[in-house]
């Protein structure tokens, strides 16, 4: 009897109720391809863009105004933001409030975390990531930039302000180097606050010259850099130059507007055939009745997913089932590489999920590494890197302490030939092969085992193979993973 009862129980233990997988992988792949081809015929492409630049360059204001000008934000919302910001005595931040949603950001007038929004131009569907410019929030900016296909750099044209951002230690410089290191190759430069220099053509060209040289040094191809003068507060040259304030600009500028430039950006090829990889940027609890339970969001860096699929959650030994897929707040049956998605999961404890977790198919998991070999390019640093240096390792949205355990060799940047094996130090602008270990804290007693993180060698996956190293609030090196050791 007991045995029978037990068996009965066992049989009743249900798999977490999973929505049926609608179609097989092959069929789905076919459908994805057809959709992409159809969109290509219509000339509509989707891509994600990260907005970068020095603090107070006007990134959020520019985005807020652009969203309004493109009809994404209604008048009602705009008036509400204007009123509320005036009440706080921060009327000049009213446009930015559309993106700076938290109370703290609004009170301080500083973007502190990436805001994700979407808008469309006639031929493009954009996911926009409005990154914080303040140097303390660069980890957040890296998280945003690693989800982007291209970048919109906002610089402040006002006297002294551009220079502050562009000089050593300014974020204009650092952000550009970071996005390039993370694989972004297209950049639109919006030269903002032109109204404060009375739309001076000379100033515009001066800044353009300086930036062009630097961009090319950083590794952007000249034909993939575009410049545009704008006045974000007044809304000048975002979608048109019909504003009365823009008269001075119209005299000498008749080129494309910001929206025109965005409309012709080309998305990189999407890796829909590769195994699915989804690094998470946010974990939260869904609060609507349709979409309740544990929600995660991120950008699908490769592969395709569909509702009902079971996914592995790494690091960890758990799997979850996808209940709902949302893209731009619409429920969809499937999503392909390149899209920013929100997934609602079932059959998993939220403790297993965190920012930086990677979702992948159980059949094709991402290797976990606590020690790996990387090839890095050292940036312009004052204190050289030595074996044993403590650094912070950035990989997608993850930020963890690590140690450079071995300096294996300095190498030629272009072909990887060894210049010197076992160098004593790495000074600025050399390329090198190094071994990095995730750091454990032995200070609190027993050396806890290092928590491995999901990483893939660059030749396997470009998206999951890029790393950044920072130290004392400064980015010291960028690199790619060559080999996962442990």
């Amino acid at each position, binding site marked *: 009897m007991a045995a029978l009862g037990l068996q009965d129980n066992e049989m009743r233990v249900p798999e977490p109720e999973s929505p049926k997988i609608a179609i097989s992988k092959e069929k789905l792949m076919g459908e994805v391809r057809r959709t992409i081809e159809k969109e290509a015929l219509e000339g509509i492409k989707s891509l994600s863009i990260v907005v970068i630049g020095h603090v107070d360059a006007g990134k959020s204001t520019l985005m807020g105004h652009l969203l309004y000008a493109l009809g994404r934000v209604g008048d009602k919302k705009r008036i509400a933001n204007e009123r509320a910001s005036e009440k706080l005595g921060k009327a000049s931040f009213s446009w930015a409030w559309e993106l700076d949603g*938290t109370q703290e950001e609004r009170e301080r007038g500083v973007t502190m975390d990436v805001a994700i929004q979407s808008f469309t131009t006639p031929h493009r569907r954009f996911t926009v990531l409005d990154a914080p410019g303040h140097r303390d929030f660069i980890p957040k900016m890296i998280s945003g930039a690693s989800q982007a296909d291209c970048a919109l750099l906002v610089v402040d044209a006002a006297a002294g302000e551009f220079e502050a951002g562009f000089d050593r230690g300014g974020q204009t410089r650092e952000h550009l180097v970071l996005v390039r290191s993370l694989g972004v190759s297209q950049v639109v430069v919006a030269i903002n606050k032109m109204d404060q220099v009375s739309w001076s053509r000379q100033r515009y060209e001066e800044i353009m010259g300086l930036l062009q040289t630097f961009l090319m040094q950083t590794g952007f191809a000249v034909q993939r850099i575009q410049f545009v003068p704008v006045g974000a507060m007044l809304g000048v040259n975002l979608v048109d130059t019909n504003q009365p304030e823009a008269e001075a600009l119209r005299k000498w500028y008749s080129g494309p507007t910001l929206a025109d430039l965005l409309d012709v950006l080309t998305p990189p090829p999407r890796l829909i055939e590769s195994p699915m990889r989804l690094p998470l940027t946010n974990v939260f609890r869904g609060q609507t009745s349709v979409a309740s339970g544990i929600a995660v969001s991120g950008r699908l860096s490769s592969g395709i997913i569909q509702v009902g699929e079971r996914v592995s959650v790494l690091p960890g030994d758990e799997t979850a089932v996808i209940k709902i897929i949302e893209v731009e707040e619409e429920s969809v049956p499937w999503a392909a590489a390149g899209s920013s998605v929100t997934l609602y999961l079932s059959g998993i404890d939220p403790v297993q999920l*965190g920012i930086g977790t990677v979702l992948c198919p159980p059949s094709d998991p991402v290797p976990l590494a606590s020690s790996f070999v990387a090839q890095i390019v050292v940036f312009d640093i004052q204190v050289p890197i030595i074996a044993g240096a403590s650094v*912070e390792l950035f990989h997608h949205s993850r930020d963890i302490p690590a140690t450079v355990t071995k300096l294996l060799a300095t190498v030629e940047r272009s072909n990887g030939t060894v210049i010197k094996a076992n160098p004593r130090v790495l000074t600025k602008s050399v390329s090198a092969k190094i071994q990095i270990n995730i*750091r454990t804290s032995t200070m*609190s007693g027993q050396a806890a085992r290092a928590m491995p993180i999901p990483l893939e060698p660059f030749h396997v996956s470009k998206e999951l193979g890029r790393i950044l190293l920072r130290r004392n609030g400064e980015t010291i090196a960028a690199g790619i993973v060559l080999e996962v050791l442990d």
Partner: protein
Amino acid sequence: MKLINKHIAKDHSGHVTLRPEEDEDMWHLYNLIQEGDLVRAPAIRRVTNVSSTGSTDSQRLRLNLTLTASKMHFSPAAAPSSGTAGTSTSTGASQGASLSISGPVQSQHANVTMGAYHTLDLEPHRDVRIIKEEWDSVSLDRVAESCKEGRGADVGAIVCGEGTAAVCLLSEHMTVIRQRIDVPIPRKRTGSATMHEKGLARFYETIYASLLRHIPFSSLRVVIIASPGFVKDSVYDHIFAEATRTGNKALLQARNKFLRVHISSPHVHSLVEALKSPEASITAQLKETKFAREGIMLDRFFKMLGSDEMRAWYGPEDVLLAADRGAIGTLLISDELFRASDPAVRKKYVQLVESVQGKGAEVLTFSSMHESGQQLNQITGIAAILTFPLDVDIVKAEEAAHKAALEEEQAAAEEEQ
């Protein structure tokens, strides 16, 4: 720690009796006692007697045992780690640091056979006698240092970022992470930031609770709240808003002890950065403490490495070479090197320290229980700032060429000493 008794003969052998009083003293003892030393301390041992009828009877006896230290284990009072997510509030054992020493018993005793293994758990306020065959200068310095009065430079620190925090206590030789806090904070999303704000509120509450539980602010000199961005201000504001709301007078009175310091990353290793930061009055209040000096010196070493690579050397072989040439201005050495189980290795480092000190240079022994010591350990545990530039490669080449000559020189130098 109190020095109860000290007897050291001309040949440097002898014994020292110490009475540990606080957590840090356990750390000193851990560094003093080496494998092979004799340790005498009170112990509790279960003794089984078999009577003539065959019935057994076991008793717990308090004995004084002397044993040869063969294995040591030190654990600070700390929370080792916490889960990856979830409102983890893992706390360490409430008692302080502990040190256990095991080895064969060396004293004759009615109830314990010679050579039987025992593990001594050293306890505060119980005398412990250490008998060494050789008390070297490093050990004696440590005894002197550990018995200095009024060295309690106790500092509390909360190193935090958005959603993560480490609550630490720093004393002269130890940094103990009392609690790691990891509260998941959903990031802001289009249209709604309520979940983000709820998460933040929960995070601040957890920090406040942890502060009350783990930081004895009334007895500390300073409490540092360090973070990148604005978290430190929010945490500070929240703490005192809560203290005012709940009428926590002790906390409100300690308000002037709280310092907010800007650091560049939310990880615990930023403590070094916080401790040497000029923006707070930290340096004035804590300049004389060991951890501040360590942090500053390590920083100076790294800066030297950047500005004049030939004057910043690290690694045991290199530093020994530099010492031979009398080039060392400041020697940075980790206490971990003195804990080497091989006496010859320890002797090598002791001699290095003595010779460098003999030349009038500064020697700083880093505690590997501090973050700065951990960082020094990662770069081999030994480093030196030289008084004049020397090229490592040239020195090494010369070394190879004149090896024989140098050996003679070394022998001569040793004779001189």
